[in-house]
């Protein structure tokens, strides 16, 4: 096996689950997540010679996010002038949905999925992937101050539901 492939497998592939988890939560679709991750891993492999050490996980997750954006999510963005000003509220639960919602856990799941992208990605990166503020800022191309306020608002939006899960 050539050296580049070996280094790639040693450094980038251990983060495949993290890449998939991010893609899955961003796209909210198993099929899309598969395509995004495969695309991202190939791009990462091609660009791997340019990767000079550092945190391979953050580097890879940034590529995953870019692939997700170029996979068409950007086109679907609804062009809110400022999402920061938008109120983050729980989606109205219709009677049928509440019947399906066997527990608070499922509701929490649905609420994360319903968060606007800007908030969802920050929450997933911090709470599930344990990325630092700086890493999240780099991955999402957002100032650290914005990362902090988005994280605070995402957490506040989930507070009630989270309490019901415990």
């Amino acid at each position: 096996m050539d050296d580049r492939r070996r280094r790639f497998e040693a450094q980038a592939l251990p983060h495949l689950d993290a890449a998939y988890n991010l893609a899955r939560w961003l796209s909210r679709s198993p099929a899309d997540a598969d395509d995004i991750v495969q695309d991202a891993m190939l791009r990462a492999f091609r660009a791997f010679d340019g990767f000079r050490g550092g945190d391979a996980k953050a580097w890879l997750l940034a590529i995953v996010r870019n692939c997700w954006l170029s996979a068409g999510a950007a086109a679907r963005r609804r062009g809110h002038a400022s999402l920061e000003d938008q109120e983050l509220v729980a989606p109205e639960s219709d009677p049928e949905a509440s019947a399906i919602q066997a527990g608070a856990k499922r509701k929490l799941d649905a609420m994360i999925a319903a968060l606007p992208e800007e908030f969802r990605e920050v929450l997933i990166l911090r709470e599930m992937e344990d990325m630092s503020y700086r890493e999240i800022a780099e991955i999402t191309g957002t100032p650290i101050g914005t990362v902090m306020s988005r994280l605070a608002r995402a957490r506040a939006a989930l507070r009630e539901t989270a309490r019901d899960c415990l």
Partner: protein
Amino acid sequence: MSCKESLQTQAYLDGELNGADAAAAERHLESCAECQVLANDAADLSDALRKVVRYRAPDTLRQRLAKALDRETRRSPTRSFWLGAASGGGLSALAAGFALLALLPPSAASLSQSVVDAHTAALTRGKTIMVASSNHHTVKPWLAAHAGISPPVTDFAEQGFELAGGRTDKVAGNRTAVAVYRHGNHDVDLFTWPDRGGRLPETGMARGFRIAFWKMGDLDYAAVSDVDAAAFQKFVDLAKAQRE
């Protein structure tokens, strides 16, 4: 949330602050009811989120990816050593030998490396302890609130390992809870993090430090220190024997 320090408190709870900033945030937290609510909520949310699915890449994707990388490297399909290690039907003994050799180092070596990095970085900063206490009733809840996990914490002062405190630290990108012990002039760090099913490295030496790994309950443990072999083994035995 109207407290103007709330983002700073959040940063502190997320382990983003050091030194004077962390101390200031800790002082503020002690006196601000609103930020205390924030701290409790953050801990509750972390607990709840651990019950939410963290998706894992499906095997079909791993296989697709291995094929795509094979095409990319323009080689006849070589069994990718860890993608295919579990399904080694057609492997020759020789290839299996190579696969096994190759399988061991990456994750294991990097995890050992990462634990020792965290340990030495804390020693270098002179900041191995974020909460100083020999009382496990103080250290354990602090770790629960700050690292989001609640490992067993026991003072082994009578056996020569005095509980000195705790901190949160990062190992391979993941948040861990660290109980810090003193043995003479030496620090012993006991790292814990939620077991995500990954392989743990062998016990041994890394860059001059002794390091041991084990799993217990739903947590992974790593002990690291530069104490001598006998003392290290004694500590590991004590730590393995402790109960909630």
